[in-house]
């Protein structure tokens, strides 16, 4: 359906970034925008230096709260060798020719840019050194740099970057492939806690977000779509809407059938958003019947059970002989797990401002993935991509929702029809009714453990959504998902249910559900065997450093490292001293190249089943370098608390082909009173730095469910957790 950031496609993205030679492009093309500061000189697409020494660095990727507007420029500034206080950061427009792939997804910003952006800084630094050496008539090797100056080592002669930048114009840049980089031990910016560049603007309420965009002469729009995804308008009282004060234009949009594209609906354009909404209320729209209008979550549940009763439709993995192993096992367990659809619900509802004038479209979009948005607008409206400019605004949350650009194409269409600049803004209800949801799923497990505590059999019949091999977006599971490859007899099957509900990647796609089921069922096996869950899981991870090779390789050694650390941090060994009703659970998960183990301590009140999460401990291994520890800590704590919110509260129910939940009143999110302290430790290992916005989330869900089991004896196999079942 849309950009899929798990499995193979994630690797394709990585490959594209390398093969595409983005770095070379960035150096060969000078930025088209003139430098904002008087006399500033652009050294490449990312760096300009003003005569007064102020350095402006472009932030290439969309900022969705993951901190890349700060962390990516940190990489450039480090190698450029300037003082961070002298750096100004500017958000780049969507411009793949200058900046290659610009998106927020897959926790890829760090791994895809860490080498390239450091080289961007190093090349610019080398140009400044060469300029100084030319002026001083000495070999560049006699010069060093420090804090925005080039220094001639033997004489101590000094020149500011600001005075040298002008002499770099037209000078050939050295080859980024061979440019030397700093010894990380000498880093002054990377690895230091840096506040988000825009933190002051955020706390003073300055306009930063898509919703804050104002364009002269701008009108406001709302767009009503069918609750059943893709249904067409049957009737709408356009005249009644037009009669509402302030309403300027009301029209039906035919739309298409692609659920992440322009769908049918009614647009109301007015001189204020409130007037547009009042106009919309007058429409009394009715909708044509649609083939998926009978779909429901209850129906999916029933169908999943039916499919499990029959033969699986396809096999994803088969090692050894599961049936024989189950027969010979000392302990066996059978369990059915299920998880619901989820809405991303970023706090800023979807919006885009668009202005179509003289055949050209200008857009301001809070998108995680603006280039596919531009292409979608181009193909839907029949405009050349080169005639579309997309300005990236800060996003009030992303979580994967804004990888799709449905709101962008709606705004573009409505603005062209309206003949004026238009800000399209969805209501929260629009957002919750028209998400690309985290897909629901079902897992029917059988497992066996021998008398020494080894898992000898693992069987999973995964019932997911799609048709045959063509799965709904983010509804897939790889055949190497843990504990596959760690259990000698392993069978993973798959069956599918056709789906008329749009789905898409949500923070740690796949993993946010698979960790829950797999780590929960492993915990069941540990308890069946009477084993300490940490020791049991450590044993399951085995002794080998690596299992598998290449992109699907699993570094069991790194996982053992974080598991041991999480146990140590949490005082796992002393957990039997906790009061009755309070217990710890543990889980780990590998995703997005990160190794995470987490322990949750929770208390279950036997009187009413209420759960209190007392504390979370996270041990994280994302390689040798945390780029910005201040931001990294925030990401990990937020991810852990978000995971708790999934487990405790969140569920989208499909009824009559539509999402039933509509707002935070019936789709609650975790609030302050339920937020536990989250202690985080980064385990540093000698691997390339990778992302952490996503992999921190998955383990907390099974860790909580496992803690609840330890506290109450009740096993959570369905999300969200039904506290009624936890009453003693």
């Amino acid at each position: 359906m849309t950009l899929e950031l798990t499995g193979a496609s994630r690797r394709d993205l990585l490959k594209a970034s390398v093969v595409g030679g983005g770095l070379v492009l960035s150096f060969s093309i000078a930025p088209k925008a003139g430098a904002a500061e008087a006399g500033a000189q652009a050294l490449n697409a990312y760096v300009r230096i003003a005569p007064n020494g102020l350095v402006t660095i472009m932030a290439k990727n969309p900022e969705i709260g993951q901190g890349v507007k700060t962390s990516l420029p940190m990489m450039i500034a480090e190698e450029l060798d300037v003082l961070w206080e002298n750096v100004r950061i500017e958000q780049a427009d969507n411009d793949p020719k200058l900046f290659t792939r610009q998106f927020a997804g897959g926790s890829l910003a760090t791994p895809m840019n860490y080498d390239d952006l450091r080289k961007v800084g190093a090349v610019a630094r080398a140009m400044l050194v060469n300029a100084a050496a030319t002026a001083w008539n000495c070999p560049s090797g006699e010069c060093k740099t420090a804090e925005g100056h080039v220094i001639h080592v033997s004489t101590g002669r000094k020149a500011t970057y600001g005075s040298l930048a002008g002499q770099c114009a037209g000078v050939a840049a050295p080859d980024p492939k061979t440019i030397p980089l700093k010894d990380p031990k000498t880093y002054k910016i990377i690895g230091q806690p840096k506040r988000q560049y825009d933190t002051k603007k955020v706390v003073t309420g300055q306009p930063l977000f898509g919703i804050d965009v104002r364009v002269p002469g701008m009108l406001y729009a709302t767009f009503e779509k069918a609750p059943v995804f893709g249904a067409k308008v049957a009737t709408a009282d356009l005249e009644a809407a037009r009669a509402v004060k302030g309403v300027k234009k009301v029209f039906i949009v035919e739309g298409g059938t692609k659920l992440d594209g322009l769908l049918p609906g009614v647009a109301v354009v007015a001189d204020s958003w409130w007037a547009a909404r009042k106009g919309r209320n007058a429409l009394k729209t009715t909708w044509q019947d649609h083939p998926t209008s009978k779909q429901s979550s209850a129906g999916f549940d029933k169908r999943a059970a039916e499919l499990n009763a029959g033969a699986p439709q396809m096999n994803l993995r088969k090692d050894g002989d599961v049936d024989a192993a189950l027969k010979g096992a000392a302990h066996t367990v059978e369990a059915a797990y299920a998880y619901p659809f989820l809405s991303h619900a970023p706090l800023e509802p979807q919006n885009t401002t668009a202005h179509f004038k003289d055949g050209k479209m200008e857009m301001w979009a809070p998108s995680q993935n603006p280039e596919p948005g531009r292409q979608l607008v181009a193909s839907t409206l029949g405009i050349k991509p080169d005639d579309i400019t997309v300005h990236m605004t800060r996003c009030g949350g992303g979580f994967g929702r804004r990888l799709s650009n449905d709101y962008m194409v709606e705004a573009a269409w409505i603005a062209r029809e309206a003949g004026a600049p238009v800000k399209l803004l969805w209501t929260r209800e629009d957002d919750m009714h028209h998400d690309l949801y985290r897909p629901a799923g079902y897992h029917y497990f059988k497992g066996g453990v021998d008398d020494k505590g080894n898992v000898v059999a693992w069987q999973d019949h995964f019932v997911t959504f799609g048709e045959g091999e063509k799965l709904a977006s983010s509804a897939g599971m790889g055949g190497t998902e843990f504990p596959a490859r760690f259990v000698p007899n392993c069978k993973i099957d798959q069956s599918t249910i056709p789906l008329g509900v749009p789905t898409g990647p949500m923070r740690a796609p796949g993993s946010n559900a698979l960790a829950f089921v797999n780590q929960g069922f492993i915990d069941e096996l540990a308890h069946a065997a009477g084993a300490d869950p940490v020791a049991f899981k450590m044993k399951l991870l085995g002794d080998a450093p690596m299992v598998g090779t290449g992109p699907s390789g699993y570094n069991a050694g790194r996982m053992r490292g974080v598991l041991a650390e999480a146990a140590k941090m949490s005082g796992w060994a002393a957990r039997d001293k906790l009061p009755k009703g309070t217990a710890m659970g543990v889980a780990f998960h590998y995703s997005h190249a990160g190794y995470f183990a987490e322990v949750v301590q929770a208390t279950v009140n036997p009187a009413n089943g209420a759960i209190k999460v007392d504390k979370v401990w996270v041990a994280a291994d994302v390689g040798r370098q945390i780029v910005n520890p201040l931001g990294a800590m925030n990401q990990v704590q937020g991810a852990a608390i978000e995971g708790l919110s999934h487990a405790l509260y969140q569920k989208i129910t499909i009824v009559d082909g539509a999402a039933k939940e509509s707002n935070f009143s019936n789709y609650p999110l975790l609030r302050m009173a339920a937020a536990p302290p989250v202690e985080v430790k980064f385990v540093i290992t000698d691997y390339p730095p990778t992302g952490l916005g996503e992999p921190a989330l998955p383990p907390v869900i099974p860790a909580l469910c496992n803690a609840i089991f330890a506290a109450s004896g009740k096993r959570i196999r369905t999300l969200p957790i039904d506290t009624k079942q936890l009453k003693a």
Partner: protein
Amino acid sequence: MPYKLNVNGKVLEADVDADTPLLWTLRDTLGITGPKFGCGIAQCGACTVHIDGKATRSCVLPVSAVGDKAVTTIEAMENHPIGKKVQAAWMDLDVAQCGYCQPGQIMAATALLAKTPKPTDADIDQAMTNICRCATYTRIRAAIKQASGQKVTA
């Protein structure tokens, strides 16, 4: 009809329907975009402003009900004796992720500290009901403690 509103110490005029929520009057008519829209039904707190010093969800407050009460938004917190301390703590601890909820969080925290200068954890739990979708609650709690001169633990 035209309403005279006392916003951030200035009298501003907005010609809007009586049922227009204060939030949209501020954002669309007066161009004061610090208060954010998250839900429209008083659930999330992104739209929080002070009405005579009290934290109020402006998305459900019709402009006609404001009268001559003092409306204060995040834009005026730099001049508010408590608000500026709260903002300073928010910056110091770098609370925000996406930042979208934070104007509302700061307004709620400032109102809390105005009433309860040294809030306990329980006070914070009770007063801070705004949603942070990015779940920055750990730092919000710490920043409130810091702004109130208490020891920061988280």
